[in-house]
């Protein structure tokens, strides 16, 4: 059974791996930090939150201060889907955000059965490849 854990990640209970729900790429061991199997980009927050008022004139511009905060963008190395973001203080170790008790997850789903799997999933953009 494959348990959808986030919009883009699932845990394969047979192989005990985190997998990408968009391209089926095997990311990392399920008991570990899925981020370890992803790629990271250190994004200047001004690129995502553009200044509304002129940064040459003003100290505060509606853009986060890039010296104070960065956006860590985590993407699937296979399909490039942006799986998670983390607004991080410069140099702060990224969080192990989902530390799953895999044995408990297996037991929980063995009792439930696959019919109970939530049906929400990533919408697939037309024409976009599923596998690589």
């Amino acid at each position, binding site marked *: 059974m494959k348990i*959808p*854990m*986030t*919009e*883009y990640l699932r845990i394969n209970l047979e192989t005990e791996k985190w997998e990408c729900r968009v391209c089926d790429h095997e990311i990392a061991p399920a008991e570990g930090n899925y981020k*370890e199997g*992803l*790629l*990271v*980009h250190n994004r200047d*927050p001004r690129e*995502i*939150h*553009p200044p*509304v*008022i*002129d940064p040459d*004139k*003003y100290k*505060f511009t*509606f853009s*986060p*201060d890039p*010296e*104070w*905060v960065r956006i860590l*963008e985590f*993407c699937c*190395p296979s399909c*490039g*889907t*942006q*799986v*998670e*973001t983390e*607004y991080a*203080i*410069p*140099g*702060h*170790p*990224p*969080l*192990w*955000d*989902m*530390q*799953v*008790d895999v044995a*408990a*997850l297996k037991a*929980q789903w063995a009792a*439930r059965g696959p019919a109970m*799997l*939530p049906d*929400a999933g*990533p*919408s697939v*953009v*037309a024409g976009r490849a599923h596998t690589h």
Partner: protein
Amino acid sequence: MKDMNTTAPSLEEMNLIKKFLDDTTLFLGPDPEIMQNHDLMPRTQDEDAAIAKVSDNHIVAKIRDRLQSGCDEGFEMVEQMGAAPGAKWGDVITGVYSASGDLAIASAGGVLIFSALVHHPIKFIIKNWINEPTVGVKDGDGFIHNDSRYGNVHNTDQSMILPIFHDSKLLCWVASTVHEGENGAIEPGGMPSMAESPSDEGLKMSPFKVVENYQIKRDVLTFLQNSVREPKLQYEDMKVKLFACLRIKQRIEETLKSDGPDALVSTLRLTMEDVRAEVKRRISEWPDMTVRSYIIQDSTLRENCVVKINCKLTKTGDRLIFDFRGSSPEFTNRATNTIVAGLKGMLSQVFLCYVWPDLPRGQAAFAPIEVITDPHSIVDCSYDAPNSQSLMSIFTGFTAGQHAVAKFLYSCPEKFTKVHAPTFNMINTFIWGGVSQHGETLGNLCADLNGMGAGATSDRDGEHALAPIFATMADIGEQELNEEEVPFLQLVSKKMTRDAIAPGKYRGGQGYSMMVSTKDSEQWGFMTTAEGAKIPPLQGLFGGYACGTYPLCKVKDVDVYDVLMNEPEKFRHSIEEIMNEQPFEDAKYSTHHMGMGFEISKRGELFMISQGAGAGYGDLLERDPVNVVKDIEEGLMSAEVAARLYKVVFDPKTLAIDFEATEQARDEERKARIARSTPYAEFIKGWNQPKPPAHLPYFGCWGDDIDTLYMGAPDITRRADEPRPNYMMHPKDVRIAELEARLTAAGVAGDEKQ
């Protein structure tokens, strides 16, 4: 040890010691035994006996519905008749409490955070006043309370609490709570950000008797009125709350007449126990997991700094534990600390408002959930620390919790709401005060704080300026009505702030701009009390982004009323245009963080802010191109930003989408992502640092080491379990020191005597 053979004191001796200590207590201060506990009180013998007699589900449900509508009726009365602006937009709650003081049933609308927090003052009354011969608790009594160290959120909130008797036996309590605002603190409006100790925070009412024989005692009332800036409001709303309580009492008495006291007592107890059991059941359906999140407060409202709210949420079986250890140390002389009860109250809103809104409103929904904190931290401050701006810490704590909870819910087969990204969490509004155009002394705030943008959900965009996180069924009120009573206008109001976005597959709901300007008073001013001008106070979800940041903008040395009268074509209707085009000659344009201490404003000066956006959900490259263009058409986002971020290709004039080119651009961007990103193991080699950066005044733990708390610099730390004072310098002293250093460096300060 010598006392190995000495006998322990007898029970009689112990009682004597206890009586001696009780009789000689010099001050009944805030009681940690009451304040640290948020679970239900144990079942009493009376409750056991009542449940043995009446436990039929249908009877219980009938009585519960009846009490619920009684509470809603009381709520309606306060909302319609209350004088405080807070009352008018529903910053109110009414409820029925068990004889032991637990909130069993609360009004459906209003500020549900009170549902977790008004039981503390009632328990204080039970513990200290019932058997106190100089006080006592009798039929017809009413008690007042506002000091957050004895319960509730902050000292703006006042409660009226009435015991309900039947055959001279205390059966239950009713209470009504309103965000009254003004309380005589160092700044008007009741939530001073300038407070440096509890002594700056105004009226501090420990629970005391203010009503006898259903009459407000005039001498006590006069003292309270004399202590605040709005004496008429103080009186009016005490009356309103009293009468709301009396209406609920009437409904309870009707129930007693028809069903008897056992049915009432049983209903209150079983409602709470059933909710508590149901919460345990629902938690057990979550995956066993630990989720970590942190939210940064980027200021103390006095100065910018980096203040960490650290949250580790662990679920095992039917236990759910919020662990906030590692959060910033308490600030000794800043108002953003909270007592831990406030944090718990706000966390309970994650569940009552956003996860399980179907559960009966009351204390039970959060009762079985555990919370761990470091004492003397910003989320569990001592009673000596100021906490008038506790909202800053309880709201960021809420968001850390909301963000963590979403990651548990995704895989649950059983959901009661949609999985969603964090809601905006800052009170971006104007607090105001002074003398009105009618000569009245006033101090309160604009209800626009209720316009927080909603987070995106798993299947749709967040709604704009929807509701505050502490009261999802509150209202923004009518600004035009407000303007009849206050000497300022919102010259621009409810206009969405373009490009202040939280992108994602589903974007966050955005916020609107507010421009206020004083008119018709020479004694009027504003303050703003929000964080998030340098670092967003949210996190995004599943690849979505958080909101951006929101500054305060001022235009001085201008009278825009003269401009509007004489040269109206010069006026602009957005912050973007006014600040970038600077249309008023000789005016002074400036930007600031959102912690503006109370500032007197002159006629026609502009103070401008924006509400914030909720966070985005999912990868923005999956956003439907049609919705991207819709956002451009609706003025939420400029075409340039939309094209650059969302990689949608469209005709700049007609906005017609080229779907094929869009798909190609997005495929290329996915490849570009892979190309510019680094494998995790390699990335952290360059990124991870052992300590906070030297250029940031950083407070809280760094990484996983929750035992070491940084206090403003990489070389200043304390152990989490060893409290130390944490003083901040006055920002003006900091500035003076900087300027003096420059004078010294320039060699022009040499002749000043020291």
